[in-house]
């Protein structure tokens, strides 16, 4: 996904994230009396939480509702704002087929925990969603790294 296609996932994500960063920056103004004084550690921590949420939200929005994991993430983020992060959990139907090795089943369940919405997915869907989620996460990390690189003071 290296094409500069303006409608690409990477494009949509990048624009969304940058807009969110601008919004966050505006809501956390530096001290107006002295711009050289940096924000308090508490401010920085609060901003970090917002940035992290914005990163995942921007990616989920860029993907839209066509993926179960992005729907789950969007739902979680929207509801975190309302009721403090209650996560809906339903046990995935893992008994549709028989796995010979218990060990592999445990690993599938580990995967459920790290993929948004994984708890409610059957194994087939989980594996498909995982592939797509991994690709998007990689893009997310790449873009965020680049932003950090651009704004890091050159030493």
């Amino acid at each position, binding site marked *: 996904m290296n094409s*500069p296609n303006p409608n690409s*996932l990477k*494009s949509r994500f*990048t*624009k969304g994230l*940058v*807009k969110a*960063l*601008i919004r966050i*920056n*505006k809501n956390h103004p*530096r001290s107006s009396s002295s711009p050289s004084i*940096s924000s308090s550690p508490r401010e*920085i*921590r609060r*901003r*970090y*939480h917002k*940035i992290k949420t914005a*990163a*995942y939200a921007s990616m989920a929005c860029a993907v839209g509702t*066509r*993926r*179960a994991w992005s729907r789950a993430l969007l739902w979680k983020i929207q509801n975190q704002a309302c009721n403090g992060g209650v996560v809906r959990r339903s046990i995935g139907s893992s008994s*549709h*087929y*028989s*796995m010979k*090795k218990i*060990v*592999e089943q445990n*690993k*599938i369940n580990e*995967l459920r925990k*790290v*993929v948004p919405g994984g708890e409610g997915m*059957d*194994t*087939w869907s989980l*594996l*498909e*969603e*995982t*592939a797509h*989620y*991994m*690709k998007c*996460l990689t893009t*997310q*990390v*790449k*873009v*965020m*790294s*680049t*932003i*950090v690189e*651009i*704004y*890091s003071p050159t030493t």
Partner: protein
Amino acid sequence: MSSRRSSSSSSRASKPSDDEIKELVLKLQPLLPQLHHSRNAPVSASSILEETCSYIKRLHREVEDLSKRLSQLLDSAGITDVDEELIRTLLRH
């Protein structure tokens, strides 16, 4: 990017066999950086699943770390406008 399924909440008509599940797991291997080099050597579905889990967790940690650094950088960076040049630079990487 078109999804091959119309609805991901639709249940499969037939139960996927162990082999079909295994096929799907094996498809994850090219996406994993650590296992990529050993593409010719047989890699078990089990280790692919394990590697996938740790890779995703690693990516989550990287997002955490990058968010923290961004938070500190925003102090002095002053991203105030959607700079088209910035977007273009970001997309070039």
